[in-house]
């Protein structure tokens, strides 16, 4: 037998056998390589996801730690090391809420996280109604219904009659009357609001860019970068139907009027400080803005979410809807005005948030400042008034006021509760109030967002 036949596997006259083996082996090895590569790729991806996740939670945790310590919250910028990641934390007040931004970078990954903090609702806002006037003598009339406790300086509560209004049936209170002669008439640190009017929000925004009367629309956004202070010498008008921006802020310091024309749709981080009045015309939708006015603010039939309206004069809200967390603040100072007759009026308006009427002096007889919730309005949250409050609408939450006030032509009734409807128990336990109330340092997260 020729030797060739014994080594047929190796040498074949046709030269085929080994070639087939090598070719098939090559295919098998290639398949194995592909499989190995897929596993390597899968592993690399999962490691990348894991690192990104750790980076995200390091940023989140740093922001939480920063806000949980008062000493950190006083600082504007600092670095925290968390889970072996160096996180840069920046903190500042935006209106009466605090924004904390945390950013970190590791290898090729980076993370930017921002969250808003506000105060937890606690004592004395656990009561449905707190009247701080030192010599309170309350009178109940109409269909008043209070679910929760009433805290007042005295236990003098009587039933009264007003012509044309039903008498109270006596079961107006589903709770206790707590007598506390030491009730504080002011529990809010008004220096925070003073800082806002002193343009504190505009610090560190660089040199202002001066513009004449301006119409803001998407064209403006495309041509003007954020994180810039725009000083408008004249009026500022938001006219276009749609206007949105990324997480960065636009700062407008306006010497004239500010107007939001009908059908304006804004979902942008904007801070506006106007020395004059602000008017929001019907059918606007406005989100994420801070409106500061040195004069009065008028709002007509519009919807809002996460807005802060802070004014030195009256704020009139008509037929509008404010989603949580919205904040309405009027601050009157004897340094600015001789007449203390500021007014926050809600007519046919639903508000989920807080209403604050602040005054540099409390208990002055000439102070006519008033928070008025009409019978068609509803507030879910907190009403804090350092003067009079007219509660004709429905309140789900807490009212803390110097006086309760009612008006029926031609008389005004001080510390009369007429047709008041306050329910403290139905308020969400996670409801958060603005920062600045004196007492324990306790805050919670209002909202948060991972930018990237």
């Amino acid at each position, binding site marked *: 037998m020729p030797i060739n036949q014994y*080594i047929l*596997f*190796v*040498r*074949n*006259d*046709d*030269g*085929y056998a*080994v*070639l*087939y*083996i*090598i*070719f098939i*082996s*090559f295919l*098998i*090895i290639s398949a*194995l*390589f592909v*499989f*190995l590569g897929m*596993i390597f790729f*899968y*592993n690399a*991806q*999962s*490691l990348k*996801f*894991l690192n990104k*996740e*750790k980076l995200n*939670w390091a940023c*989140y*945790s*740093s922001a*939480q*730690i920063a*806000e*949980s*310590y008062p000493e950190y919250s006083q600082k504007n910028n600092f670095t925290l090391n*968390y*889970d072996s990641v160096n996180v840069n934390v920046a903190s500042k007040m935006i209106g009466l809420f605090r924004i904390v931004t945390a950013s970190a970078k590791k290898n090729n990954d980076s993370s930017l996280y921002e969250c808003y*903090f506000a105060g*937890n609702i*606690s004592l004395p806002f656990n009561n449905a109604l707190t009247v701080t006037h030192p010599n309170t003598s309350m009178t109940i009339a109409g269909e008043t219904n209070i679910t929760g406790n009433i805290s007042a300086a005295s236990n003098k509560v009587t039933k009264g009659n007003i012509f044309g209004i039903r008498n109270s049936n006596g079961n107006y209170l589903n709770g206790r009357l707590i007598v506390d002669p030491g009730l504080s008439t002011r529990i809010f640190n008004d220096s925070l609001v003073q800082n806002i009017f002193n343009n504190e929000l505009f610090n560190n925004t660089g040199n202002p860019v001066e513009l004449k009367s301006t119409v803001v629309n998407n064209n403006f956004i495309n041509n003007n970068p954020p994180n810039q202070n725009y000083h408008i010498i004249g009026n500022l008008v938001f006219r276009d139907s749609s206007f949105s921006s990324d997480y960065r802020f636009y700062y407008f310091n306006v010497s004239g009027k500010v107007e939001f024309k009908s059908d304006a749709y804004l979902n942008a981080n904007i801070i506006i400080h106007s020395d004059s009045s602000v008017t929001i015309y019907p059918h606007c939708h406005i989100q994420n803005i801070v409106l500061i006015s040195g004069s009065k603010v008028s709002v007509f039939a519009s919807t809002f979410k996460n807005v802060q309206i802070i004014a030195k004069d009256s704020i009139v809200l008509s037929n509008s809807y404010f989603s949580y967390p919205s904040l309405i603040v009027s601050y009157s100072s004897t340094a600015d005005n001789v007449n203390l007759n500021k007014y926050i009026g809600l007519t046919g308006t639903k508000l989920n948030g807080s209403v604050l009427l602040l005054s540099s002096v409390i208990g002055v007889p000439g102070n006519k400042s008033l928070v008025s919730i009409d019978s068609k309005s509803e507030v879910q949250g907190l009403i804090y008034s350092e003067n009079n409050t007219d509660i004709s609408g429905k309140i789900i939450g807490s009212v803390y006021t110097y006086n309760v006030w009612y008006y029926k032509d031609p008389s005004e009734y001080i510390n009369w509760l007429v047709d008041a409807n306050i329910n403290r128990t139905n308020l969400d*336990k*996670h409801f958060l109030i603005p920062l600045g109330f004196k007492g324990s340092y*306790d*805050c*919670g*997260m209002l909202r948060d967002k991972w930018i990237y």
Partner: protein
Amino acid sequence: MIAECLEINGFIDEEGFSIIEALVSIVIIGITSIIIISFLIMFLRGTKFLNRMDALLMVQNEIQSTLVYKTFNDTSYANLKGNLILYKKVNNLNNYYQFDFSVKDKKNILLIDIPVAVIKNESN
């Protein structure tokens, strides 16, 4: 068919291959196969590589659940396959809660460990 194709393109010698050529080819193929197969065995045996994604998903879900439902207590549970166990430990520090989310496999090998701090407040 393949052989014809290779022949046309001049890849095969009509004389066939020498024994040395064949042996070298077989040795190279063998060594390469052994290396690749040993790598594959290593990866397939080590659950760390294949289960890390599942572990990450478990941790993500538990963190979200903790933050949304405010479940601030220690817990541990296995996934549906039963091959991974998630541990959540809560440390009550002065001003915040320190959570430690970790996932281990059946052999008690740590796959993921993510610490998360959460501000302490009354509503929690």
